[in-house]
């Protein structure tokens, strides 16, 4: 099934539910039945009789006989009907098997799956529906499946940005030939996989053996649960927006149950979002210290997470390499260069630039680096250490290197004279050579949007320094929308794709500990961003990502013009991605002079280059 997903779109859990509406249900029930027989000491003939017994024990005091556990998943089945439903499902499966034996290719393209289902949560009626159609396939009106009966949103209205990717919900549903382009072998294999997935998924509470057995019966379809999970998340966000915290709290609990039935990326994403929502709903007046504010005693931990994120996935490397290439091209022919880095951290971007400058035709220039970082609470001077390491490296490759570090709580505190600062080396000959400046910002500018006026001030400072080039690497997503629901929806899509890419680009479970560790750290790094977007507000919400188009508008308003990033950077980025395991999913795209890296069809990170508009000194070999 997953091959199908990749072809259709970037969101497997969402798409799958819509494009194969409940088709998995009968298969799953049958397999559950087999499992139950195996697990429950086989040889018992009547599964539904057993189920009825279990149901009888487990569903004491359900309201009007509707099975409680199934109701948690959105299905309304009366306990008394359970035996009946199970019998019909068996019939359905036998009918499908016979039709499958006849014609393998149309197993899933069977008209039964195109029929209009009203109220799919009513399993018994749904099964009746399908059975009657199997016996007499009618011509079918093509309409989107109506919403589930639960009180969740009617249509999963996917975010406005890039709706062509998310067309599954409405348009793609009706072309079974396109959607189900998988071979029958792979479909059965994947069903078996899903069964395995189901059987070993952990359940939050399984106190008594009867409960466990009953729960095995309950787990119906992981894809269906995936849909419900997303619906639940959206419903919770909507409730939070309307300030209906009681309802939101109830839904949050449901989310954890649903999330447990998922596997892989979806579970982790749902977990992080659920936690953030829970904090938003239940937090005390003073926000919890877990990374709501960036200047926090865990900056060392932050750096460690950042380091693992750098190592495990290509996003930061992509940003660094493309920015370096743009800077290298801008510095062509200059003898004195100065780079200002707005987010120094461990300085991992600069060794590659130093090496490239050392090897450029004509020899290396005099290189000066100004690094800016947040204050360190434990008095350790990490900025100076980084500078020292870079100086060591520069010395070995014989590049004249000078370094200065600035500690600043916010970039808005910087003044131009600090950055330009006169050199006190006493080398008089330097006055002849003008110093060419480049400003580099990786994931730093969006934080300034938390305070009004801060970004304008920083852009003004940059202009005052008169840089030859300004490189900006930012997330390609709009997490700064006006309403909470907009931000939530956008963030859900974005981080789902990010987590998918983390899953997709690592090797099978036999990976060594270090790699799993790296992946876990990267996920935690992203989890902190999720927490900030969802649970924080006002000045604390620093992860105010904006899309490339918005940054373009801001930069142009501030007096910058775009410098196209050349094809060298594109080629180098493509080569870099080819080296990543699973690099098939990554896409480098050129977007009007800016490069973006995405996972399948969704761009995630964008690098852009700028210079002051109307600068007479433009000598860089662009376009």
């Amino acid at each position, binding site marked *: 099934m997953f091959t199908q997903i990749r072809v259709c779109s970037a969101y497997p859990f969402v798409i799958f539910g819509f494009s194969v509406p409940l088709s998995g249900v009968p298969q799953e029930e049958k397999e559950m039945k087999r499992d139950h027989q195996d697990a429950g000491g086989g040889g018992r003939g009547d599964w539904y009789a057993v189920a009825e017994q279990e149901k009888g024990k487990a569903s004491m005091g359900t309201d009007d006989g509707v099975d409680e556990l199934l109701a948690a998943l959105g299905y309304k089945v009366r306990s008394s009907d359970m035996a009946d439903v199970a019998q019909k499902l068996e019939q359905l499966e036998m009918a499908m098997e016979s039709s499958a034996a006849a014609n393998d290719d149309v197993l899933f393209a069977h008209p039964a799956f195109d029929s209009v289902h009203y109220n799919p949560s009513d399993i018994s009626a749904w099964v009746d529906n399908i059975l009657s159609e199997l016996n007499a396939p009618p011509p079918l009106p093509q309409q989107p499946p109506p919403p589930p009966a639960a009180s969740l949103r009617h249509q999963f209205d996917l975010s406005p940005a890039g709706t062509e990717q998310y067309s599954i919900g409405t348009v793609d549903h009706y072309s079974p030939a396109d959607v189900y382009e998988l071979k029958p072998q792979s479909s059965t294999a994947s069903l078996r996989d899903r069964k395995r997935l189901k059987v070993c998924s952990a359940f939050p509470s399984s106190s008594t053996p009867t409960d466990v057995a009953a729960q095995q019966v309950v787990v119906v379809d992981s894809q269906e649960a995936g849909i419900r999970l997303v619906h639940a998340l959206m419903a919770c966000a909507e409730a939070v927006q309307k300030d209906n915290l009681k309802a939101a709290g109830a839904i949050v609990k449901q989310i954890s149950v649903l999330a447990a039935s998922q596997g892989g990326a979806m579970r982790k994403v749902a977990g992080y979002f659920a936690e953030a929502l829970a904090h938003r709903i239940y937090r005390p007046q003073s926000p919890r210290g877990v990374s709501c504010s960036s200047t926090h005693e865990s900056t060392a931990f932050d750096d460690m997470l950042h*380091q693992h994120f*750098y*190592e*495990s996935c*290509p996003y930061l490397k992509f940003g660094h*390499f493309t920015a*370096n290439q743009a800077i290298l091209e801008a510095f062509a022919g200059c003898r004195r260069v100065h780079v200002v880095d707005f987010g120094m951290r461990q*300085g*991992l971007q600069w*060794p*590659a630039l*130093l*090496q*490239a400058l*050392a*090897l*450029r*035709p004509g*020899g290396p220039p005099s290189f000066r680096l100004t690094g800016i970082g947040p204050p360190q609470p434990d008095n350790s001077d990490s900025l*100076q*250490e980084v500078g*020292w*390491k*870079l100086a*060591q*490296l520069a010395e*070995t*490759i*014989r590049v004249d290197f000078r370094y200065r570090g600035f500690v600043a709580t916010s970039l808005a505190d910087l003044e131009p004279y600090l950055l330009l600062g006169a050199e006190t080396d006493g080398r008089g000959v330097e006055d002849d050579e003008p110093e060419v400046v480049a400003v580099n910002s990786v994931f730093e500018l969006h934080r300034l949007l938390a305070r009004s006026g801060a970004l304008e001030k920083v852009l003004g400072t940059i202009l005052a320094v008169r840089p030859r080039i300004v490189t900006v690497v930012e997330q390609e997503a709009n997490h700064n929308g006006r309403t909470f629901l907009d931000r939530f929806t956008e963030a859900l899509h974005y981080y789902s794709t990010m987590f998918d890419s983390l899953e997709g680009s*690592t*090797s*099978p479970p036999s*990976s060594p500990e*270090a*790699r799993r560790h*790296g992946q876990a750290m990267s996920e935690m790094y992203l989890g902190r961003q999720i927490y900030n977007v969802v649970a924080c507000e006002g000045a604390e919400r620093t992860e105010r990502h904006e899309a490339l188009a918005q940054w373009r508008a801001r930069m142009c308003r501030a007096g910058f013009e775009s410098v196209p990033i050349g094809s060298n950077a594109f*080629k*180098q980025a*493509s*080569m*870099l*991605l*080819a*080296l*990543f*395991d*699973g*690099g*098939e999913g990554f896409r480098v795209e050129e977007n009007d002079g800016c490069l973006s890296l995405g996972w399948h069809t969704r761009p995630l990170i964008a690098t852009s280059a700028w210079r002051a508009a109307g600068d007479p000194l433009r000598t860089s070999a662009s376009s």
Partner: protein
Amino acid sequence: MMMLLLPHREEEEEGGAAGRRRFPINDNADLLAEVLGRLDGRSLAVAGCVCRLWSAVGRREAVWEAVCHRHVAVGRAGAAGGTRSVVAALGGYRRLYRLCIGPALDRLAGVRRQGPAVSSSSSAARHVSLSLALSLFSIDCYERLGGVGGRQQQPPASLLFLCKPVDVS
């Protein structure tokens, strides 16, 4: 003792020789270096296990330099001398091959083995460029530098992504 057999020449036949002139390769280390420089990385490493002389010759920077240049696409014919000194400063060609070029080539070969499912648009990127390899190498070298007090924080892992086993299922 490794021997190269040369076609015998009647007029140079020494008295007592059976008619064939033997040329032990181990007598001429430079020739050996030339030969070894034409191998690929894995074979060269294996050749280093043959005997002490081969091990010593197989570690020569010039040999590994030849191997690297043979397997890597050099974008522009940059100043070869400059490259040599920078690479030597960063750790040498042998290390460059072992850490960056070798794993990268393995990774790309593994991807190629996965068949024609590779999209044509990215096929142009299916090779390693020297500049990319050097960038990665410089980052790794930087990570290995100790801090101010010489303390080593964590083992450098920026090249870990290259060393993952390739999933060729």
